[in-house]
């Protein structure tokens, strides 16, 4: 399908068009330059062309770090291709740098031969000095091995807007749209969607709208007319399964999954949450969906957030709390109460760099052991993890299935990478979603609040308002069946084991191993957001003739039943984790299997190249 068929803007493209298979672009600028928006729009316009895409935003924790400094650089990386891709790409083919700081902060990631587009107006001696450039890199030859385009982005934007009643500063703000227009020309992105987006966004500010539209079109036209750009590029649609798609980020997918689960369970969703990066977006998204009966309660703190969710769950709602690592630490005691009360509770932890405040806007997987064990006593909770942005939808529904079936707290782990990253999502047919209907205890004689279902070991979900089953529960140890306070040694031992057995017995799908030849001896085994980089590395290795198997764990407590057999089958297992080996520790202790860890804790996802190298080491060197 051509761009024209998809309603793309037809231009009289007078320059040669080069077909490429995939491109990685990184937009970088000051955190106030609108790079995230620019990247988002390019992504949307790209998705609609049917390319496969994967994105990775990277921004500082400071909302507005000092202008023009390295600390304030914000970037958005986007990988798009005519084939299936798994990551946002290791190394950009194109860097758009809106100022010297953006160039300096990113140049180390840019391979020689790549294209660099800079706003040359920003390369003033003052700005250069601010980031420690002694000479102007645009002139001193240090960028000779790149395809450098020094474009007067600011001044061309300002002069294009000279007719509008705007101050220079206001006019300059549209330069990100100039850059977007230029890149849209280079890669033949359709412009209608972005124009419609701008019209909606600035509906009440006609001057600003006009400025953005003019800057956007000027950028496009500049690409078409200037001699600086000799070619434009075309990337064919990727072959994807038929269906309706949208580009979705992990946090949005997770919120949709919760709404869908509440719909399928036919109970109202109650979210108790306290704002925290990078999880707040889920609160924002869910707060929009009141028409689905969703209550969002912005609590006074993390503890009240989970407490209110548990209270709502006690009343028969779908109690959910969303947080990140430091918040999970605060919620520990209440999760322990949920373990004891045996009520459904969903705790979403969008992991970020730790410990303590750590790296709030960066990704990490170092809360796994906290999710597993971060409570007093023998306090088992189910722990599951999403592997990609769109998988957050599926795993949110899974979290609800497990919590409501087994009346246990479920910790759903996501992380900054998949929360903020995005990919095309084949929108599921609502009719195909699982039925998650719940059953509450009914009026009865001699009600026993801790009498268990023999199969699931779940106790009844006995909600207030049901006549004849009034009962008292609490955090103190309870007698089996009656739920009365009980301190007897044998009873405590029995209850501790029973709560563990209940979690151990949760039905989870078997894990699939991807081993095309069936005789690989090395297994790449990951969990969570490392799925993309691992799959990408596996693909590269196989293209190079290597035999390697891949499996990905999404259910950690309990592990899938066939995991032990899989570990036994492969002599060597490599597990990359963005921590110091937390899954590896669990695997070793449960299965007595040695695991080769590949551990990096940089706040960034793995690159394909480093995982390929790590695997090559295991495949050949020892």
């Amino acid at each position, binding site marked *: 399908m051509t761009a024209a068929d998809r309603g793309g803007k037809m231009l009289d493209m007078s320059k040669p068009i080069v077909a490429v298979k995939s491109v990685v672009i990184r937009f970088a600028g000051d955190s106030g330059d609108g790079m995230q928006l620019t990247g988002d729009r390019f992504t949307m316009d790209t998705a609609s062309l049917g390319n496969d895409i994967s994105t990775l935003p990277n921004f500082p924790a400071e909302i507005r770090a000092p202008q023009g400094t390295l600390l304030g650089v914000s970037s958005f990386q986007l990988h798009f291709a005519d084939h299936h891709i798994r990551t946002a790409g290791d190394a950009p083919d194109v860097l758009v740098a809106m100022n010297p700081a953006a160039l300096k902060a990113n140049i180390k990631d840019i391979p020689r031969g790549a294209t660099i587009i800079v706003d040359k107006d920003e390369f003033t001696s003052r700005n250069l000095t601010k980031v420690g450039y002694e000479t102007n890199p645009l002139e001193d030859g240090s960028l000779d091995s790149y395809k450098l385009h020094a474009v007067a982005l600011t001044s061309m934007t300002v002069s294009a807007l000279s007719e509008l009643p705007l101050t220079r500063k206001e006019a300059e703000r549209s330069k990100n749209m100039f850059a977007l227009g230029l890149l849209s020309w280079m890669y033949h992105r359709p412009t209608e969607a972005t124009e419609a987006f701008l019209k909606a966004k600035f509906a009440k500010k006609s001057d600003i709208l006009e400025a953005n539209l003019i800057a956007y079109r000027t950028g496009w036209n500049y690409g078409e007319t200037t001699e600086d750009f000799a070619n434009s590029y075309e990337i064919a649609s990727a072959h994807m399964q038929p269906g309706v798609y949208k*580009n979705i980020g992990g946090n949005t997918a997770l919120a*949709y999954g919760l*709404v869908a689960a509440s719909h399928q369970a036919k109970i109202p969703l109650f979210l108790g949450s306290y704002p925290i990066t990078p999880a707040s977006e889920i609160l924002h998204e869910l707060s929009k969906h009141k*028409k689905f009966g969703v209550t969002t309660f912005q609590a006074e703190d993390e503890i009240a957030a989970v407490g209110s969710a548990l*209270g709502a769950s006690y009343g028969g709602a779908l109690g959910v709390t969303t947080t990140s690592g430091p918040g999970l630490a605060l919620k520990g005691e*209440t999760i322990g109460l949920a373990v004891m009360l045996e009520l459904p509770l969903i705790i979403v932890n969008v992991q970020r760099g730790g410990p303590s405040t750590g790296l709030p806007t960066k990704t990490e997987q170092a809360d796994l052991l906290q999710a597993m064990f971060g409570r007093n006593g023998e306090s088992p909770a189910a722990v599951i993890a999403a592997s990609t942005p769109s998988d957050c939808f599926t795993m949110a529904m899974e979290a609800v299935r497990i919590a409501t079936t087994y009346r246990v707290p479920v910790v759903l782990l996501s992380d900054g990478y998949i929360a903020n990253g995005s990919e095309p999502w084949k929108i599921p047919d609502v009719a195909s979603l699982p039925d998650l209907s719940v059953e509450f205890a009914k009026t009865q004689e001699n009600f026993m609040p801790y009498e268990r279902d023999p199969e699931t070991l779940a106790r009844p979900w006995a909600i207030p*308002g049901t006549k004849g*089953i009034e009962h008292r529960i609490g*955090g103190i140890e309870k007698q089996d069946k009656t739920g009365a306070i009980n301190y007897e040694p044998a009873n405590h031992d029995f209850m501790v084991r029973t709560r563990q057995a209940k979690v151990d017995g949760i039905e989870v799908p078997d894990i699939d191993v991807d081993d095309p030849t069936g005789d690989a001896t090395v297994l790449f085994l990951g969990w969570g957001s490392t799925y993309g980089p691992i799959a990408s590395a596996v693909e590269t290795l196989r293209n190079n003739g290597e035999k390697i198997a891949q499996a990905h764990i999404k259910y950690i407590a309990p592990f899938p039943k066939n995991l032990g057999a899989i570990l036994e089958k492969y002599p060597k297992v490599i597990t990359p984790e963005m921590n110091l080996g937390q899954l590896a520790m669990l695997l070793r202790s449960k299965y007595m299997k040695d695991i080769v860890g590949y551990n990096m804790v940089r706040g960034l996802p793995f690159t394909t190249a480093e995982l390929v190298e790590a695997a090559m080491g295991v495949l050949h060197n020892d």
Partner: protein
Amino acid sequence: MTDIALTKKDFTSDQEVRWCPGCGDYSILSTMQSFLPELGIERENIVFISGIGCSSRFPYYLNTFGMHSIHGRAPAIASGLAISRPDLTVFVITGDGDALSIGGNHLIHALRRNVELKILLFNNRIYGLTKGQYSPASEQGKITKSTPYGSLDTPFNPVSLALGAEASFVARTIDSDRKHLSEVLRQAAAHKGSALIEIYQNCPIFNDGAFDQVKDNETKDGSLLQMVHGQPIKSATTGVIREGASLKLVDLDSVDESQLVIHDAHDPDPSYAFSLSRLSGSSLEHTPIGIFRDVERPSYGAMVHEQLDAVIAKDGAGNLEKLLNSGDTWVVD
């Protein structure tokens, strides 16, 4: 409403009550069990949620729904329940340590939001369950296990704290005065929104006699400043008059009764109730008793549901298929 009138017995659970002999909690429990039938609410629609502490065992002894939760968090847990289930009547049972120390944050936020919770704060000015450390309500200089040289902390006045937190209903009563306690419970139950009731409660083991000043026949009438809406505020010996923007204690002998402040629990200005709360110090010599404040403002749960209903009335009930397919989508054939 119930079909058949319930009795105290219907609200008494089969659990053996395990407070220390002579504990003030017994009389509060007994008064509550006697009072509940009066509400005319079915047992299954009443929930007691407590935190941790001696008083927090309370829910076990009532044959309603109940949850003995964790230290300080009862208002947070109860908020989630009360907001999502406005059909229920939710009581929070807490103590001075539970509510004012570890759970202080949840208490003030529940009150400011006006969540439909009736919060009974059993104040014995001591930590009982942990065997006798000072509490945030203990008087300065108090000798306890953790303060052998005397506590240095300035205590909270729970009523002042609640008023500062924008509470719409605040009262004080005494464990042993069944009639007064019942009346306060009655008014709190009739109030829409959150209610904070401070109950002076004697701990015979670790802080015996803490409230003798307002309980002993010899001293109580002269110490308790009775607050009855529409009546002058006074004790047997002392009255309350206005002095500038503030309130002042005077000997009843020195003023004409017509000069005394006529109590207005519905005064929209919270500084009036706050001034009343400041009349008492740790010594209890002049202790206002009754309802400090009872003003109407929308309850949080009601507003939450109004907002949900309003959105549905305006936009229609949610359509999942539409939500999932919203925004920029494309078709792959």
